[in-house]
């Protein structure tokens, strides 16, 4: 029997009928059509499905959609309203932190969560903050550089984006 779920998805109120064993990643991709969030391993190991659930970084493949009723879900699409890239996304492009791009949406959400918690993260904090996200292309160095760059820019602008 399907379950009714109300979500605030990137700020917009939405209602979905979900299966009892449906995962949030399926709802977001298949029902809301937001395919920025990727499904990689499906078991919490790779982080490609990372989204913010009530502001907390989680793997959408390990969240039961029915349990998210009434929650705010923020996906990579929310970073670029109207298709305008955020400073974080631009930094990824500038630093060459994107190759095949499969890990990128999850990396961006992990970086976003990190920068909300730490305005000036140390190198160690950046690596810790991205530890749940696998990238098989870049070797991580450029991703870390992109996060460092955007943190520095935001600090120079007094915290504004």
């Amino acid at each position, binding site marked *: 029997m399907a379950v009714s779920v109300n979500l605030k998805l990137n700020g917009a109120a939405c209602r979905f009928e979900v299966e009892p064993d449906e995962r949030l990643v399926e709802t977001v991709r298949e029902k809301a059509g937001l395919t920025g969030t990727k499904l990689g391993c499906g078991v919490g190991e790779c982080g490609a499905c990372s989204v913010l659930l009530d502001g907390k970084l989680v793997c959408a493949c390990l969240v039961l959609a029915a349990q998210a009723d009434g929650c705010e879900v923020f996906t990579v699409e929310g970073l670029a309203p109207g298709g305008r890239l955020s400073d974080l996304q631009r930094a990824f492009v500038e630093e060459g932190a994107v190759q095949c791009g499969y890990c990128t949406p999850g990396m961006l959400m992990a970086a976003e969560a990190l920068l909300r918690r730490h305005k000036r993260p140390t190198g160690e904090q950046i690596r810790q903050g991205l530890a*749940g996200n696998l990238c098989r292309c870049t070797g991580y160095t450029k991703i870390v550089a992109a996060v460092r760059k955007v943190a520095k820019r935001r600090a120079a602008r007094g915290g504004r984006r």
Partner: protein
Amino acid sequence: MPSFLSLTSLEDVAEMLWAEGPTCALVAGGTDLLVRAPRPERTLWLDISRCAELAGIGLDAQGRLRVGALACHQEVVEHPLVRRHARLLGLACASVGSLQIRNRGTLGGNLGNASPAADTLPALVCLGASVRLVARQGAREVPVSELYTGPGQTVLRPDELIESVRVPLRRGRAAACFKKAGQRKGMCCSKASVALDARVRPGLRLVDVRVAMGAVAPTVLGVPAAEALLEGQRLSPRLIAQAAEACVAAARPIDDLRSSAGYRRAVVGALLSEGLLEILERLRRAERRAEGLRRARRARGRGRR
């Protein structure tokens, strides 16, 4: 296909478990449940994540630390009471998975899952913690060390659930370490883990020493031999090596898909050594700092005269 029901009061959950226990699968964070689907006879997925009575971290009526079953690992890591009085638990929770997993996975789920590799287990055993179990007929407390009867098996009855974990407060200066070996730093289930908790006494001595190992036996294993060696003795690399040997001797590991018995046995010793050598280094630094302060104070005292 299972059915899904979300209940918001502990009383309703207990009522449901009493009536339908064997067919229910409790869902807290779901990080275990969605990886290893529950057995097919569990046709009702019972969401407990909205029971306020199972949430929160604080002190109970007896002045013990109460960590609600729904507290997620990250919440435990960041809580000031945990930092002050149960540092070892914070260290264990900090080692769980990635931030994504720690934000979602709960302490109750870690215990309810009954995996011998659950990282909070050795920490809670060292801290002398108990679990409060609630059923319609009433509540009972079980020491964490007696919660498991084997891998995946607990003393929980089908009509019971974990309400919270209670940890007696440890006062005085603590030394604690939690070390685990796994596939990858930053996210993995343990091949083996070692937890140690103790009070610090002057002269590089540890007292009230508790040592426990995870994933090297069907259930958590206390290591009385290592505790006895360390108790009240001056910490030294030689003593640490002996304590590590005691861990190796006590381990009863198995071969499985995560690791081999031989590796597990060898690595528990190395894990305890690593943790204790770090503690020794910290204690030495603290002693040097204290000595420096004493000398500065004496010098200032002379200056005034």
